[in-house]
């Protein structure tokens, strides 16, 4: 098992290198000179030229990439072109917000989505089922930024229950978490429903009934655990999507997280910040995927057997 984890972690390395290369390449095509941004409009051309040289921006692409990666391997993510401070400071400060947001959202999605999904699977074709289908479709279709704005209009402006802005207390996380959980709640609901319906059709569920097991027992002991396996993937994918979706949510709610940083950095061609945040997000994504796979093994003995 440990060997497997190690193998997976090692496999992440080429992916991360690939990602860093792709992003570095894209960023290098972006117009604009970071040195000028760093120094401001009023700086003299000489000073800009000097800084350009210092930052190595005149070097050939591959050399720049090489030296960047060398620094990264030494734990040095560089100096942000936008703020002039080490990138790591800003990321350290912003990362918890994004993680918290994603975590709260996924918790909301799980707490709401899975039970409703079970209910609508158990009561297939009932009113509840139709309602939850239409509702979940609605949530999948709603633009997250718009939902955010509507929530702000309703709960902050009209009712004044929660603050619309910022990220410093739990209260501030309510609306953003609701917003970004909307889509994953809906997908989770639909997945729960369909996997449970799938599992219920299996022969071993018939066997369980034939043993004399009651319906709740069959659903909670036999069905749910088997259905959990595909659900974990969905949760994992949603967690990843949420990290990506944080770009939108954070900008609507003005939260100082990684997503916000990414937009800011891309806009100001702040290559080191973009690289560091992308790599962080991708690593996180990889780790979430790994956890998902390990959770599989935990739940599904067939897979665990495979890993040995």
């Amino acid at each position, binding site marked *: 098992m440990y060997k497997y984890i190690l193998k997976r972690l090692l496999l992440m390395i*080429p*992916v*991360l290198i*690939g*990602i860093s290369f*792709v*992003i570095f390449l*894209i*960023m290098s*095509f*972006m117009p604009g000179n970071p040195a000028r941004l760093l120094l401001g409009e009023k700086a003299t051309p000489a000073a800009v030229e000097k800084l350009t040289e210092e930052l190595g921006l005149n070097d050939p692409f591959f050399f720049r990439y090489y030296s960047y990666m060398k620094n990264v391997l030494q734990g040095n993510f560089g100096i942000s072109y936008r703020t002039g401070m080490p990138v790591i400071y800003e990321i350290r400060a912003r990362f918890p917000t994004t993680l918290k947001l994603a975590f709260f959202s996924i918790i909301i999605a799980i707490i709401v989505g899975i039970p409703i999904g079970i209910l609508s699977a158990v009561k297939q074709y009932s009113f509840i089922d139709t309602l939850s*289908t*239409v509702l979940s*479709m*609605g949530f*999948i*279709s*709603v*633009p*997250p*930024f*718009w939902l955010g*704005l*509507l929530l*702000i*209009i309703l709960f902050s*402006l009209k009712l004044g229950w929660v603050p619309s802005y910022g990220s410093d207390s739990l209260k501030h996380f309510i609306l953003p978490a609701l917003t970004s959980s909307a889509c994953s709640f809906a997908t989770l609901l639909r997945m729960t429903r369909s996997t449970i319906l799938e599992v219920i059709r299996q022969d071993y569920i018939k066997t369980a009934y034939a043993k004399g097991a009651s319906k709740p027992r069959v659903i909670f002991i036999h069905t749910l655990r088997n259905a959990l396996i595909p659900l974990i993937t969905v949760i994992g994918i949603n967690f*990843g*999507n949420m*990290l*990506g*979706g944080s*770009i*939108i949510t954070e*900008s609507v709610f003005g939260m100082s997280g990684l997503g916000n940083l*990414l*937009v800011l950095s*891309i*806009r100001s061609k702040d290559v080191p910040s*973009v690289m560091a945040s*992308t790599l962080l*997000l*991708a690593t996180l*994504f*990889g780790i979430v995927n790994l956890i998902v796979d390990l959770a599989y093994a935990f739940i599904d003995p067939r897979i665990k057997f495979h890993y040995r």
Partner: protein
Amino acid sequence: MSKKLYDGLESKEINRIKKKSQVQFVLSHLFKNRLAVAGILFLSIMIISSIAIGFLVDYKVIVKHDLRNKLLGVSARYWFGTDGFGRNLFYRIIYGARISLMIGFVSVAGSTVLGGTIGSIAGYYGGKLDIIIMRFIDIQMAIPSTLFAICIVSVLGTGITNLLLAIMIADIPQFALIFRSSVMSVKNSEFVEAARSNGCSTYRIIFRHILPNCMGPIIVQATLNLGGVILTAASLSFIGLGVMPPTPEWGVILTEGQEYMRDFPTLVIFPGLAIMLTVLACNFIGDGLRDALDPKLK
């Protein structure tokens, strides 16, 4: 005597045999799904009215400012009121359907074709080629697609075409994966083996036997993605990286309305509703197609 009876049964059997092609079968199933029908209706109305408005109203009227009439409420002349530039919000939203749907259709078609080619090659040939392609897809999948699209737009610059390209590129791996897995699952089926034993060429096997049988999940995915693409396009425009004002794209209209959101919430609600309903319609159709194409029903 018994011969006649036998014939009687046979004639009954003929009635029973549904002389329907696969397409008709799927469509008849689709039209039984009320939500899907509602989706198709809504989309058709959107498409027709957005085309019609091009003939009825001059595009200049749609984008030209009229600051004296700005921020008017809902009235007979301005069904949805006017925006911060005094433009007719209703016209803008209806016209916006053109842009959003165009971006949606073209980029989904593009990523289906490109992703399809890559995925089919990986799925059919397998082996080292597959591994290499998969590594590339892994890399792109590990970057959140919104981020990827933002990066591409930042490089290419804003505008409808670039937005379209960005979304298309960002969606390719998704389609490649679906094509790959469907091709792989169909590739080993007995009828493909039968085709090979019949001496069919690789080309014929892929295009006549494998791909038609992969179409189900792909059509579903494409329809569902249509909604997703419209959402992404609107999101990018919303954060100022997509279509540029005054083009009446829904995300743009929303951003412009956001400033007046407090006093004139309709400026935000109407464009948002337009996006949501369109995406919802796509999802209903996609869902209906999924059910209609479900092999378990057959």
